[in-house]
């Protein structure tokens, strides 16, 4: 930190230098800075530099935007049309013949699609079908078998494996018997049919 003969501090003067260059100091501060600059060569150099930079900055050119930019701005404004609310734009759009045709086509296509969907054949399965009735019965039987095996497995925890293995064999026999009796019933039904017809005839 240096102090010149006028008593002003160089750092304090340099702090005020930009405001001094812009003529924004109070008269008393301005007199102090002026006196210091007369006396201090280093600060005088800084003052000249500040003046030079400000002058150079002010001589830097402004630039016009290129014509292509202005052209594309004008084109965008033309394509946009005047700035109007979207509701107004929607009404204007709906009044155009092409828009009305497109809207009617889409509506017609939707109606046709709805009718086709509504008229499609029903494909829900029916329990009257003998194949499905048999499958349902077998499923019920299998579920009962699994439930029974679960119950017996719990007993096996207490009494030992003999109970479960014996039970499995028993249940398998029962299933075999059930399926065998059902098959013979079906066969009887097939053989009885013509005889009934024959008896009636």
């Amino acid at each position, binding site marked *: 930190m240096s102090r010149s003969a006028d008593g002003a501090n160089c750092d304090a003067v340099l702090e005020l230098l930009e405001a001094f260059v812009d003529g924004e100091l109070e008269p008393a501060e301005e007199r102090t800075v002026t006196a210091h600059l007369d006396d201090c*060569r280093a600060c005088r150099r800084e003052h000249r530099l500040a003046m030079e930079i400000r002058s150079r*900055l002010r001589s*830097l050119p402004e630039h016009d935007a*290129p014509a292509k930019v*202005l052209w594309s*701005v004008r084109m965008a404004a033309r394509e946009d049309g005047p700035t109007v609310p979207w509701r107004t734009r929607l009404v204007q759009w709906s009044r155009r013949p092409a828009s009305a045709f497109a809207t009617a086509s889409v509506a017609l296509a939707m109606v046709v699609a709805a009718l086709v969907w509504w008229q499609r054949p029903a494909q829900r399965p029916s329990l009257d079908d003998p194949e499905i009735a048999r499958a349902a019965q077998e499923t019920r039987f299998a579920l009962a078998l699994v439930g029974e095996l679960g119950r017996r497995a719990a007993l096996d925890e207490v009494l030992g494996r003999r109970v479960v293995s014996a039970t499995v064999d028993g249940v398998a026999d029962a299933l075999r018997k059930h399926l065998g009796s059902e098959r013979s019933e079906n066969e009887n039904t097939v053989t009885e049919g013509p005889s009934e017809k024959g008896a009636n005839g």
Partner: protein
Amino acid sequence: MDRQRFEAVVERHQRRVFTLAWYLLSDREDAEDVTQEVLIRMWRSGGGVAPERLEMWLLRVARNASYDRLRSRRSASRVFAADAAHEAAGTVTADGPSPESVVGGSEIGRRLCAALTELREPAKSIVILREIQGLSYQQISDVLELPLSTVRVSLHRGRRRLRELLREVYRHVSVS
């Protein structure tokens, strides 16, 4: 706003908008994009800005759009680990022509423009608006939405920083 008035406004203010964007971004192509974006935004605002405030509004939008672009450029340069030295200095290089490249043969002018890119915000915007574009403190305060005292202090700080950066260049300046 009708199209005729819009074109008159474009004609009148395009230079201000483009100059601010170019000095802020140091890239001509980016400045062109920002100028186009700002002017189209003015059209779409539908004349919602009072005529006496239009210039300040345009400069504010241009400055914000430029700043957004700088930010995205900065994040892109992070992604690609570009120029680490410039990143540390808070500046980012651009590919297109910069203002200093068209200053016209003056070495000092080129160095001055390069030093300008080293300034931090808001000092950089304030120096450009005040010294290159000639706005008053009050107008700058309106554009940047900053108190007058901040504008004044930031301007002085920015110019002082330029002095530090350019001291070597100006060694030849004679002192009477």
